[in-house]
């Protein structure tokens, strides 16, 4: 099953809508609730990242019999130092993002803790692609 969702820059009102839709789909497919939670927590952090830090982007989810692969592709500005961004506590979040309860530098570390495979590719000026895979 292939699903696609568009996310928009600074669209905090709808932040989480794509994650919520994928959660409902996984529940309908009777995926183990603990696995669903891991997928959704990782995806939600990635979705918030695309809205808070990037100029929006796309979320692509492919659900197979034994796994889900989610790709969050944003339109930039890109991450200059991925290793720095992966460390807990490091953040470039705006005050607006912090007011929403995010921006403490836990997004990427939280994603890493919840997925079986994580691949972050970023080019400054072009964008970031976060690909994650969780096995059922």
């Amino acid at each position: 099953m292939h699903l696609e969702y568009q996310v928009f820059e600074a669209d905090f009102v709808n932040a989480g809508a794509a994650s919520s839709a994928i959660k409902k789909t996984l529940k309908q497919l009777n995926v183990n609730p603990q696995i669903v939670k891991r997928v959704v927590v990782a995806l939600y952090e990635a979705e918030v990242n695309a809205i808070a830090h990037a100029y929006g982007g796309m979320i692509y989810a492919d659900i197979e019999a034994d796994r889900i692969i989610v790709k969050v592709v944003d339109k930039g500005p890109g991450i200059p130092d991925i290793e720095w961004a992966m460390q807990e506590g490091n953040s470039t979040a705006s005050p607006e993002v912090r007011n929403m309860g995010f921006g403490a530098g836990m997004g990427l570390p939280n994603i890493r803790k919840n997925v079986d495979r994580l691949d972050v590719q970023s080019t400054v000026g072009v964008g970031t692609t976060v690909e994650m895979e969780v096995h059922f």
Partner: protein
Amino acid sequence: MTLKEIADVLEAKVLCGQDRLNEEHETAFASDLMSDVLTLGDYNPVILTGLCNMQTIRTCEMGNLDIIVLVRRKKATEEMIEEAEDEGMVVMESDFSMFKACGLLFKGGMQPIF
């Protein structure tokens, strides 16, 4: 503590989930940071937070957390209550500070999850 006892001790107004007030819960977690709330694994503690916007409800939805106490006189919007109702959550508002709310629940027997 039952959710009814929690609402009573916090002098809280229950906004939705009134039909669940007889449920017994043992643990609570307090944070204004939603990324912290997303690190709780399989636990479903009562969440105390002073963060009051749609992300509060959405984050709890993503984390399978369905009991929220808004502290520090924060008032939920209609939109938040509607979303919480759709998710079958219990949401209450207390005028108490986070410190006071946590202290009262701890005294009442609620446990931390770590």
